[in-house]
């Protein structure tokens, strides 16, 4: 069998699939109730972008507040400052990074594996609406004086708002789990004939790994929330979550955005990288199995529900979990799969160097930049777990979180540019895409990098504690600049999406010369995705190895 690096032309018509049942209604009703995976995925993506705007706005305010650490001028009080800080951190993971990837996967993964729809389409739709309703409850409750416990006694009267924060967050987590379950089931059980799991596209595989890690770890977060809720209603109990004027509730959920768990939100970064770079370089991805192994290894290292600081022993006689071998080994090893994935991307770029002309496309910039951010984030994570530095309680923790989560966001945005024809039917503006990619990655590096370095100057992770050093103040200014740069990128993203929404031009079916099955569909994909069932898949790049018209041989 001859292996080629350019896909043969496909002649799949735009006709409805025989397996698809067209929706009998259209318009507003369909937008709210459709069980087509592309429409559901777009709901998730829109919700994620909306939350991203809110999170970045909060981040800018927090940045200004942190520059003048001596007082809380903007938020008007320590407790309000703390609540917004906590909302930003938890929101960036649960309301932005995870939904963006679930939305992208809901649109792309079924097509990648040759399925006509996502598994459990109605559950997928329920997950999208449940997420939005839960997010609104959670955000409104925090703004109404709730949150995750109080740093002062002033919030003692806001018990209901705190409880609403907890139930809203639980609803968000359950919805994310339901969405992840639909994606994972699709990849596991709805692959087209011939597509073994080892031939699954890297993005679909990375979402399967991410979904598995989320399904394994986020129920533990639900248990944390349940404990906090029971304690809240029955007075400070065993775990002390009764608004006793400390961070007892937040302390039980903060592990979500600390390493290793925070890496779980960045697992699909490696899948995006592996899907985009070889296609754009115009070469077959090398060592597909190794890439899958690296993604799986990164997923394994990001299982972090066991590493909860709130429950660690306080006795000096007992070794803390973050001083144990497993935690340190996980922290150090996490950089290896990221290095491997970036090495694979570099190899593809090197082999395909003759295919490049002009500026690199936005999605390549975004994917490579996201990989770079993740590399810096995991490297900072290595520094954080190495004992002599003692960075565990310092702002380096926030630096690792910001680097990793903005890596995830940048990768999701790169994916939106790459798969835009399949998501919305038209391409996103390329120049604006480059601006967005550079802003997100540059801003992420400035924001997270400055925080990582700031930890070496003994600046605390707690926002209410001012830096002890002038350099710390200067680095806070650098972090603020980084956040402002990210805000520019987000504005660019919104403008680009608005422009694409108004566009009447339909993109080509396969504008990049893709290797995987989603590029064999029409643009925009019809209900049921494929006009006829895809041919027998014989490799991880089915469009490169598809049988030709002459019969049999590619």
């Amino acid at each position, binding site marked *: 069998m001859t292996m080629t690096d350019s896909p043969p032309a496909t002649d799949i018509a735009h006709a409805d699939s*025989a*397996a*698809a*049942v*067209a*929706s*009998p*209604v259209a*318009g*507003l*009703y*369909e937008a*709210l*109730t*459709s*069980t*087509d995976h592309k429409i559901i995925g777009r709901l998730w993506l829109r919700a994620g972008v909306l939350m991203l705007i809110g999170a970045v706005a909060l981040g800018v305010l927090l940045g200004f507040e942190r520059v003048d650490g001596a007082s809380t001028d903007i938020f008007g009080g320590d407790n309000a400052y703390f609540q917004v800080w906590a909302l930003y951190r938890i929101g960036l993971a649960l309301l932005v990074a995870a939904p963006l990837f679930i939305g992208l996967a809901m649109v792309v993964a079924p097509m990648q594996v040759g399925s*006509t*729809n996502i598994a459990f*389409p*109605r*559950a997928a*739709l*329920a997950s999208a*609406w*449940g997420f*939005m*309703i*839960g997010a609104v*409850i959670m955000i409104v409750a925090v703004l109404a004086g709730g949150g995750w416990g109080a740093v002062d006694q002033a919030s003692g009267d806001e018990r*209901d708002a705190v*409880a*609403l924060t907890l*139930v*809203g967050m*639980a*609803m968000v987590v359950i*919805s994310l789990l339901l969405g992840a379950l639909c994606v994972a089931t699709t990849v596991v059980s709805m692959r087209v004939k011939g597509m073994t799991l080892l031939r699954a596209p890297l993005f679909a595989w990375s979402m399967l790994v991410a979904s598995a890690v989320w399904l394994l770890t986020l129920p533990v977060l639900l248990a944390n929330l349940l404990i906090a809720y029971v304690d809240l209603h029955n007075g400070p109990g065993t775990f002390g979550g009764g608004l006793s004027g400390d961070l007892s509730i937040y302390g039980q959920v903060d592990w979500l955005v600390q390493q290793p768990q925070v890496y779980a939100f960045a697992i699909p970064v490696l899948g995006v990288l592996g899907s985009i770079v070889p296609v754009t370089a115009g070469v077959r991805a090398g060592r597909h199995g190794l890439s899958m192994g690296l993604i799986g290894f990164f997923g394994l290292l990001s299982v972090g529900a066991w590493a909860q600081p709130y429950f660690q022993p306080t006795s000096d006689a007992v070794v803390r979990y973050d001083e144990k071998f497993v935690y340190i080994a996980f922290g150090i090893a996490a950089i290896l799969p990221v290095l491997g994935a970036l090495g694979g991307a570099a190899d593809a770029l090197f082999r395909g160097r003759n295919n490049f002309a002009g500026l690199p496309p936005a999605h390549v910039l975004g994917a490579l930049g996201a990989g770079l951010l993740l590399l810096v984030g995991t490297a900072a994570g290595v520094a954080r777990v190495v004992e002599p530095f003692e960075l565990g309680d310092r702002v380096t923790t926030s630096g690792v979180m910001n680097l990793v989560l903005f890596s995830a966001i940048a990768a999701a945005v790169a994916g939106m540019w790459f798969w835009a024809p399949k998501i919305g039917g038209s391409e996103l503006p390329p120049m604006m895409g480059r601006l967005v990619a550079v802003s997100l990655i540059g801003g992420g590096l400035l924001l997270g990098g400055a925080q990582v370095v700031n930890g070496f100057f003994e600046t605390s992770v707690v926002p209410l504690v001012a830096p002890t050093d002038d350099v710390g103040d200067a680095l806070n200014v650098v972090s603020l600049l980084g956040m402002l740069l990210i805000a520019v990128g987000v504005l660019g993203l919104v403008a680009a999406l608005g422009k694409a929404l108004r566009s009447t031009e339909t993109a080509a079916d396969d504008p990049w010369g893709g290797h995987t099955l989603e590029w064999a569909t029409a643009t925009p994909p019809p*209900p*049921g995705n494929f006009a006829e069932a895809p041919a027998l898949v014989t490799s991880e790049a089915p469009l490169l190895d598809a049988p030709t018209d002459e019969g049999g041989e590619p």
Partner: protein
Amino acid sequence: MFTTGFKFFFGTGVALATAGVLYGYTTGGNHMGPLSLGWKGGVGEHVGYGLLVGLGVTAMGVALTLIFFRDADPADQADYMGVDDIAPSAPVTASPWPIVGAFGVGTMAVGLVLNTAVFITGLVIVGAVAIEWMMDAWADRATGDPAANRALRNRIMAPIEIPAAGTALVAVGVLAVSRIFLNVSPLGAVVIAGVVAVVILGVGVLGALDVKMNRNIATGLALVVGVVVLGGGVWATVDGEREFHPHEIEGEEGHGGDHAEDDGEDHAEDDGEHSDGDTDSE
């Protein structure tokens, strides 16, 4: 012959019923009690026995339903319909139940914290959605023909849905409108009643003339009317009833409520408390 769904549910039913009978004997049952549902002898621990046997019978009932409708077995369906092959069906039809269910769960979440009545409302919504969702899921795969599936589903559910939805709609509408009438001034109540009457008349005239309207416009209008009525009712409930001034009618002491100036009953002033209507005439 026997479909997959029938085998699964019938097997489950037999296993549960057998477990129930064994449980009935091992927890103190005697003679033919566990086999005769307690008619000829005792059944031991009643709750567990009843639960297991009940679930078993239910599962067997579901199994019989499935075999009757030839559940989703392509070969059986093809044989039943007299065709060679049945195209696989993918349920991509729009469904309102996911969004309604999410709304119900959100209502439960808020009610859990703030108000038991709200929680129960959410629970009722989620329960109704669960039933509708199950029926839709079953009907999607009842035959290979989506139109036939829809017709089958509607034949079973419409006799339940239409009266239930109509009752709920009327109850909520009456409750909301009554709160609005009790909130606004007497003249305002008359005006609103007039407007409502004109709207109902207008809708009736449009229906009689068979005027065609875009589905989206109709949906949007219905949504706006629903939001206005419901929102107005909630706002009026929160704002409270208007101030009433009941007065005493000569010779009918204590029965002023029937002839009050604002044709309301005796109410405490503006604090939401209701008097008994017999003693506090002014």
